[in-house]
């Protein structure tokens, strides 16, 4: 079932190589954007071509480079990696479309740099998705942090500088301070490759007390997951242009964080081992706390993008909470939520950007009565909000359903309450926006002139909104992939 192929490398390299034409065509924007597009489509194609093998239960392996004996940079495409790679690479195509509209509409400076680093960041994202062991994951995680810095600070003003400072301080501080020593300690103790496996690479190799510390170090070390108290980089990073916030801070970067946390749970420690030592509860409580508190903070934000950012923090904690319950349905739900939330949240970010592009408004209180002027955008916003809240006819319902089932399965009824309470709060912070847009008269006379944003932007946000709805009716292949991962993670326990 395990096959070898260079495809994972190609998928990674596709966007990295695109940097060359992007820079070469810096004086000819059409060719430059065309090369980004081609790279995005090629990348998606390569990822897609690996899907059948993975769906059949196989994996695709490829060792890139053996750093030291037993310590290697290697790729292994399994069902979970596939799920994430599909989400990231498909949304890159849409985001590229959106970015063209947004960047041109606003006549942003340094667009070449923007597209080049965007491509590098996507390479790193797929590198994380396909990584076969802890070191590979760490390496690409760091590359992603650094390559997104010029994107976050794109405006190069004071606000961008302080946002960029927060961004790197949190991300590098935690990864170097917590994850790196924990990782080296793991290698020291096992002497092995730390390859991810269903049974857990560390399982049985360390004492429960040490394992608890390592778990905490690794989970907090991968702070792109936005777990409190290491979450403030995300609102800070909202100074970035909206395409960046959309793809990176609703999909790629933050999902890389929860992806890593998920891998730590299922691949490094193994569900069975964690059930034995029982430290995952601590993470559950932290995640539950994050879910509730971030939703409350989101309620109080007037800047749309900041509200979305705090909403993202809460939704990321959903995923962490789901996996930390160590129940099969919860684990499936977490993975599904990676995909569902990605489509929902990227729609919301696209809408926020489109509103800004068309009206120059970023505060919610200024967005009264926009529904008649920008009907498509606001309709897409409504769908995105429905998906994130977890209402029927949008994909978010399915993942939330599984997450709640997971809490029941784990007999953690307190956590069930957390999920339900948070959904209520989600509704509270999204639906007033929708209501104000559609059912109140605009107070601002300027809005008479307002039309929909750049056609590229509108097209992109419509596509993701439609996808969010489609995922409700047809959650495959994400659902099959998630179930496969869950099966593999829990197989060692059933086998005992």
């Amino acid at each position, binding site marked *: 079932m395990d096959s070898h192929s260079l495809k994972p490398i190609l998928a990674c390299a596709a966007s990295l190589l695109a940097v060359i034409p992007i820079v070469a065509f810096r004086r000819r924007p059409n060719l430059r954007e065309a090369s980004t597009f081609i790279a995005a489509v090629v990348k998606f194609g390569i990822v897609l071509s690996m899907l059948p093998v993975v769906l059949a239960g196989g994996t695709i392996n490829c060792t890139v480079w053996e750093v030291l004996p037993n310590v290697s940079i290697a790729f292994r495409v399994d069902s979970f990696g596939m799920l994430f790679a599909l989400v990231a690479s498909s949304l890159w195509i849409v985001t590229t479309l959106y970015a063209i509209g947004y960047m041109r509409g606003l006549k942003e400076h340094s667009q070449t740099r923007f597209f080049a680093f965007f491509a590098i960041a996507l390479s790193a994202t797929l590198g994380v998705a396909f990584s076969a062991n802890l070191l590979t994951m760490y390496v690409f995680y760091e590359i992603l942090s650094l390559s997104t810095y010029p994107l976050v600070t794109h405006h*190069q*003003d004071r*606000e961008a500088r302080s946002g960029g*400072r927060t961004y790197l301080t949190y991300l590098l501080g935690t990864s170097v301070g917590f994850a790196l020593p924990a990782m080296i300690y793991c290698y020291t103790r096992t002497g092995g490759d730390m390859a991810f496996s269903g049974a857990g690479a560390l399982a049985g190799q360390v004492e429960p007390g040490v394992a608890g510390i390592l778990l905490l170090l690794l989970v907090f070390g991968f702070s792109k997951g936005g777990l409190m108290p290491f979450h403030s980089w995300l609102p800070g990073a909202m100074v970035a*242009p909206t395409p960046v916030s959309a793809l990176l801070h609703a999909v790629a970067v933050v999902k890389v964080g929860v992806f890593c946390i998920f891998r730590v749970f299922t691949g490094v420690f193994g569900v069975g081992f964690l059930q034995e030592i029982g430290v995952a509860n601590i993470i559950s409580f932290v995640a539950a706390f994050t879910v509730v508190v971030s939703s409350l903070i989101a309620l109080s934000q007037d800047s749309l993008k900041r509200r979305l950012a705090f909403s993202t923090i809460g939704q990321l904690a959903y995923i962490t909470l789901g996996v930390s319950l160590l129940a099969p349905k919860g684990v499936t739900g977490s993975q599904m939520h990676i995909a569902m939330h990605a489509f929902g949240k990227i729609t919301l970010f696209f809408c926020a950007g489109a509103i800004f592009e068309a009206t120059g408004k970023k505060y919610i209180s200024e967005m009264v009565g926009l529904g008649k002027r920008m009907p498509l955008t606001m309709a897409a916003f409504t769908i995105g909000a429905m998906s994130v809240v977890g209402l029927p006819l949008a994909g978010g319902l399915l993942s939330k359903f599984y997450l709640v089932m997971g809490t029941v399965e784990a007999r953690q009824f307190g956590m069930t309450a957390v999920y339900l309470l948070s959904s209520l709060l989600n509704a509270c912070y999204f639906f007033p926006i929708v209501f104000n847009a559609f059912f109140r008269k605009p107070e601002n006379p300027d809005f008479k002139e307002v039309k929909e944003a750049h056609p590229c932007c509108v097209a992109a946000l419509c596509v993701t909104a439609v996808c969010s709805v489609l995922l409700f009716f047809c959650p495959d292949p994400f659902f099959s992939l998630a179930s496969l991962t869950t099966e593999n993670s829990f197989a060692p326990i059933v086998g005992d």
Partner: protein
Amino acid sequence: MADHAPAILLIAPLFAAILVSLAGIRRPARRRIPAAPSDEPTIGGKPFESSEFPQFKEDKVCFMLTLAALTVSLVAALTMLGQVIEGGAIRYFVGNWSAPLGIGIELRVDHINALVLVMISTVALLAAFYSHHRVEEETSGRTSQYYTMFLLCAMGLMGMTVTGDAFNLYVLLEVAALSGYALVAMGDKRASVAAFNYIIIGTIGASFYLLGVGYLYIKTGSLNMIGIREIIAEQGLAESKTIQVAFILILVGVFIKMAFFPLYAWLPNAYTHAPSTSACLMAPLVTKVSIYIMVRMMLTVFGPSFAFDAIGWGDAVVLLAAIGIIASSLIALAQTELKKMLCFLVVAEVGYMVGGAWLANHHGMVGAIYHILSDGLMTLCMFLGASILLFKTRQTSISGLVDLYRKMPLTMAAFTLGMLSMIGVPPTCGFFSKYFLIRGGIEAGQWLYVVALLFSSLVNAILFFRIIEKAFFGELPAAETGHGHAAQGHHKDEASVIDEAPLSMVAPLAIAAVGLLFIGLNTREIVTVIEQTLNVLALTGGGG
């Protein structure tokens, strides 16, 4: 020819130094175009043409000779590395005086110092390449003197690494040091004070070393490193107080020479005020070679069991290293001058390596030796980058480095790679040295050292992002600009032209930066080579 590589390695720069200084003698007579003297050098197939460009001829000859000699050294070093990997350690007796008890001069090349030699000759060659545009201006025309000293210093450093004789090591150490003092003293106004300081402290260090060698000779009657080791083993001298004192004296001597905390006082001023070429040669090499000498003394002269067991210094040295790393990182944080800051980072890195070597286990020692190689190149990259930036901006402070990503994209790209390596971002070599050192620290249970390494990485991140931020954002308008679209300033700057340094300055920097990746990507091979020798020495902790 290839068998004599160890000798050629040293003879090439030595010989070239003589020729370079001869080229300088003709200076007073330069007004009349001289009839080409018969002894004009032709080295490396570059025939000397005397009739063209009489004004610049002598500078050019010196430069070319230096390059040629260092190229020969590099080739010799690479040849030796190949030989060692194939056939094991080489013992080369100069003039075939193969006497058992240290009458002849022995050059000894094993896996470790073959690698170190490649590093030294590469760094020296790149620094020489960089010097082309700068020497004339920085030394107010004393080009030939400068290159003579440059070559002697490089020769001394290579000699220290390759020699198999404890007393010769002292001689070569003085050659490198004396020429080094001159290299520093040619710098700016404050350089002479810095050089004087360096002379005093450096001489004290060398004296300590010499005293130690004297004690060794009294007790063993041999100066040959392998001879000493055999005699210590045969006669069971490990318990002898004399030998222990000798070890401590030698150790203190090299600690001073390598600027180990708290004996670093000479270093920051010397490298800040030296001509930039000198700093590019000496900052990467002098400390690193001294660390290699320490490793050599610990492993081959006294033996690991003696070094780690007979004298219970291990914990104390590691503790001092950890304190040194933390303290010098903090001092670096307080610096406003770019070069000064880098100097304190050099001191911090010395702590990395000394600590790693004294962890007394396999990974610590591998990490220390690997870091000698990677840090040599890394420091070169940092100093080259800093020198170029300071040369172009005519600034010495970090705050002056604004808006450079647009003006000097190539320099900044290479410099950024170096900075990332200093922080320890994979896959640059800085990451892997940290990996080994931390792993060694964990295995030895030296938690303070591990914390110090992580702390220093974080401080480096802060230090360098301060620079990156300055260079990336440029001059920010004083008023709050709200959203980015208000930052119209960038649009008008868009037209500002790229203003790079000359190729002869940027190329070495770019090569050094690529070298960091190269070392990082070839970590496994390099470590395998290092382990060849370490395994022979049977260090406790075993190969892993």
